[in-house]
């Protein structure tokens, strides 16, 4: 029973870890253990697996070197890490656009299918993929960052704003614009889509 109490009594917030790492640098590895997989998945979606590994490593090096500047009143380090990731991804924006363009030509045959079942999404989902990919390829960097932080990284508006260092209002307007463009791309061939 006692053994159960010990870890439970010392919950570790991201900010606690970062604070600790200022005195004990190796403590930063715990942050890696928490989030490297999540960041890897996100980057693999945007840039593919080849670039993702190195980029995630780079992200943590950058984060580590900036740990003294982290705002310890923010318990959750995800927005901070996704902010760094977004900057590093933007260096590859040509590759990213090319990746999406490639998807407009071929279906998802060279990319990993998640173990999730695909029964429910049927034919229409497959059919819209090239259109979605084309829309992503044409978005501006800023709009795409916001859209994907929200759709793919599951950040809230506030978190996305923190990550990119922009006001929440800007997040909303970029998201609206990006979604409008995506819907336009879909609209031409998918009159059955739901309306909000």
């Amino acid at each position, binding site marked *: 029973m006692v053994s*159960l109490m010990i870890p439970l009594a010392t919950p570790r917030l991201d900010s606690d870890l970062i604070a600790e790492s200022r005195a004990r640098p*190796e403590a930063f590895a715990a942050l890696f253990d928490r989030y490297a997989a999540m960041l890897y998945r996100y980057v693999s979606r945007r840039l593919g697996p080849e670039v993702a590994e190195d980029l995630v490593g780079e992200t943590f090096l950058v984060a580590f070197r900036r740990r003294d500047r982290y705002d310890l009143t923010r318990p959750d380090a995800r927005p901070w890490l996704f902010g760094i990731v977004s900057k590093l991804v933007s260096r590859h924006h040509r590759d990213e656009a090319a990746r999406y363009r490639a*998807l407009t030509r071929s279906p998802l045959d060279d990319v990993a299918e998640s173990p999730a079942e695909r029964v429910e999404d049927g034919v229409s989902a497959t059919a819209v993929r090239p259109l979605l990919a084309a829309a992503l390829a044409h978005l501006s960097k800023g709009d795409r960052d916001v859209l994907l932080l929200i759709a793919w990284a599951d950040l*809230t508006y506030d978190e996305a704003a923190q990550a990119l260092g922009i006001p929440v209002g800007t997040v909303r307007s970029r998201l609206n614009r990006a979604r409008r463009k995506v819907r336009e791309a879909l609209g031409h061939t998918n009159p059955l889509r739901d309306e909000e």
Partner: protein
Amino acid sequence: MDDLTMLRDLGRGLEHEPPAGLARQRRRLLDEAAGGRRRRLTPWSGGRRAGWITLVAVAVVTAVLVVVPTVLLRGTTGAHTVAPLTGDRPAKKGEALTVLLLGSDRRPTSANAGDLGERSDLMVLLRLSADRKRATAVSLPRDSMVRIPQCRSADGRTVAAHQDMINQAYAIGGLTCAWKTVESTTGVRVDHAVAIRYDGLEKLVDALGGVEVALPRAVDDPKAKLKLPAGRSVLDGRTAVAYARLRFALGDGSDIARIKRNQALVQALLKKFSRIDRPADLAALVRVAATSVTADAGLDLDTMLGLALDVRRAGTRVTFVTVPWQPSRKDPNRIEWKQPDAARLFAQLAAS
């Protein structure tokens, strides 16, 4: 489907799992941290494979492991909790506790507009006896046709009561709606509700060092990227989730066959969990679990800690059952609960 849902689906298709090579990046970080010198890993930072583990199935394990950390690490922040139900509900009797557990595709991020992509893949009603020595886990197949009561959707619309598959409740109004649906269709008062994302389960399995399953025959399903030999195998998180969700390559292709596999997995997880005795290992589990859960606000720290301790102390024995069912008369691709057997089961459960 709206545009965000389609976009998420595209994203899932593009995603790759972290490779073992990511460990190199971790070493790179540690080298930097050590100023170029290699240092021994501390137990806290996870000397063992912390995890490119991704992983699986749901239930009691998660009730104990997952909820505690969530409440601890997330505190009572609104994003990951829902308010307890109000209004006309079945009466609470005695000290026994009933918890609704959901396994879902995605984290319910109700703060995000248009987040309609979540589905509850697995629903389990867990009843813990007053002395916590016994537990009964009743699986509710996701394609059960039931009456979904009036619910409020994430964007504030009111969705009228209607007949639908039970897993639609979660898609319509998240944990709260699933909770209401289960209470109203079973007549059992549900004290707490918890939703766990599949990727959280993946991490749990990995943190537990994998689980062992026994297969009657080999599985090779390119669609699920799953290839396993007949006989005993140890599954890592990702494989375990794929196995849990696999529908067509094994058994009769029904949700029922899948539930059986999930139950077997949960048993295997429980076995592993009961053997953990090092605080560091438990802490690692707590940590990985914390990011993937939504729970009701009534599950506060004291409640959960108490429950976790009780369950461990009592060495709770779990019985798994599936609600009695039959193919739906209206749609043979769906099922309906068999009456009066189902009603009798729930009455027994409520009285136990």
